[in-house]
């Protein structure tokens, strides 16, 4: 799995207008998986733009939709998610996690997935 992320002041999200709980969740999961030998490569637009050109899917998506489409999540070379990160369950599925590790991943506080997809805030908390 690879992340293609927008250039940000800091991936902890502390430089945005608010703390982004989503980035904290992702940081936690990435760290946990890394401790278990599962690496997720994170490409940051400011630091590694070449990677964004190399991947065909990513390049197409940002050419068409602009940097707003980031983050784009790629698995085995193919873009599976855009405009956001996968859910806890998605991580479990992609990596085929089982037992206590799966449980730990699922314990991360996830944004409640909801009806999003159009431009109206869907008021989910």
């Amino acid at each position, binding site marked *: 799995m690879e992340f293609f992320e927008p250039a940000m002041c800091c991936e902890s999200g502390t430089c945005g*207008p608010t703390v982004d709980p989503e980035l904290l969740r992702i940081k936690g999961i990435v760290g946990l998986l890394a401790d278990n030998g599962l690496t997720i490569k994170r490409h940051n637009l400011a630091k590694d733009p070449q990677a964004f050109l190399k991947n065909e899917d990513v390049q197409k998506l940002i050419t068409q939709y602009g940097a707003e489409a980031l983050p784009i999540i790629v698995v085995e070379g193919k873009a599976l998610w855009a405009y956001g990160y996968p859910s806890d369950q998605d991580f479990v599925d992609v990596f085929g996690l089982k037992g206590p590790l799966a449980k730990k991943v699922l314990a991360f506080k996830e944004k409640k997935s909801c009806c999003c997809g159009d431009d109206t805030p869907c008021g989910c908390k």
Partner: protein
Amino acid sequence: MTLPAAASKGGFMEIYTTSLAQTKFLFFEGKGGVGKTSLAAATAVGLADAGERILIVSTDPASNLQDVFERPIGMRPTPIKGVKGLDAVNLDPLKAAQEYRDSVVAPYQGKLPESALDNMREQLSGSCTVEIAAFDAFAAFLSDKAYAEKYDHILFDTAPTGHTLRLLELPSAWSGFIATNDLGASCLGQLSGLSEKRASYEKAMNVLKDGTLTTMIYVARADDSLKEAARAAQELETIGIHSHLLVVNALLEENADLRLKPLLEKQRKACEAIDPLFKRVAYLPLRNYDVTGLKGLRLFLEKDEDENTEKGETLLPYDDLSALVDDLISSKKKILLMMGKGGVGKTSLAISLSLELLHRGEKVTLTSTDPADHISELFKEKKGLSIRHIDEKKELADYQGEVLAKAKKANVGEGELAYIAEDLRSPCTQEIATFRAFANIVEGAKGSICVIDTAPTGHTLLLLNSAEAYNREIQHSGGETTAALRDLLPRLQSSETSIVIVALPEQTPILEAKRLQDDLDRAALPHRWWVINRSYLLADFESGLLRQKGKQEAHWINEANRLSQGNLVIIPFAE
């Protein structure tokens, strides 16, 4: 108590020269406008004149080393004509950071969409990038043996901040995180090939900590900048840097003019409150000339110049505060922000503006970030005026606490928590925390004119702007941008806002104000007026010293006049 004996009485040179002689590396630390570069340059000339081999290194983006020496100084050590044994080098980290940014972005021109390129550029424009670029620049001079052998003393006209040094010391800064780009450190990530520099950085760090090799010289004036110097010293102290020397510059000595009494009193109080951490303190009096050119530099540590009978430049036409207020009212401004470096008088200007607006029958919400909160004390109640106070330290602490609590809740591991904690000490975090607070105040001030004694920098706003687009998406599902925060950005960029640029009539503050203005243009923020505070020239002093000083302001006031395209207000000195 009278003021401490200053240089004219021999006190300065004694303390200063014996302190300096002890170490090879001398760092000058202090905020803009306190005379840091002048002191560093004068010291370099003085030591060289005494027969030592000296190198002076400038890594200050605001460096006026070239202005001070009145000659171009290059990226390699070059001999200074007229001073035997003195070499100088100018490493501009701003330029280095920009070159780095351009080199990163250029290959992707036309390949990545413009929105992606903008996103990259903004991320590579922060103050952190410049800080690290500066450290990178001087690490070589600290760790390279060839330099140590060639020179008796190496002087730096700027010092690394505690934030930079702590980042470099975090094990996580080095252990793979950065090499693999897994954890985007806000400040370190942009240095490519950082890991190769580890040895050089470590050596540089050891030199900094060794009190037999390095002295940190803090330059301040007898005002709030003393507290800032103490903060900087305390910060370095916790990292293991213990060799401090404090120089109090531009001390006004006893003077009969009654208008100067409060200032003298203020100075005396500030000096009495000097942090005991500073065991060595040297006092340097206010000079009656601008310290430029070799002649000025050679005099600076010793004495005043003979009275100059030449007339100064003639002032271009300028305005007073009421012209500014007329314009603000007729153009229906609702949000007025004061922008400028610390110590230029933003709070007092915010007060004067508010009073003038009240006088014209406007309703005003006056907001101050002044830690002392003088405003609330000044007017308890006044019709049409409401007063708000932002405690920046508290806002920052709240914000840090909030983020760390969330990180812990999100199961973020120990090592990464330490990293987030350090990210939270970066200057941009303070700006964000303050911004959040004043979003709430502006939101609540509907119906009155909001006057705020501070302003976010263009960089912060651009960051917020790009984060905004990104956050919009996340926000659908749990993002926590408040309405106040969302609404403020577009309002700040609209015609209801005006940012007033505040400066003092001296070289460094004017040049700094120019950079702030460029920053505002970059972020498309509306600004029109400049205000020059505390002009000796307009105060028309009898005293030879201040009269003389006033004459030299004219050149810089006229420069400000040009930079503001004639929208300039000058306020005479009145303490």
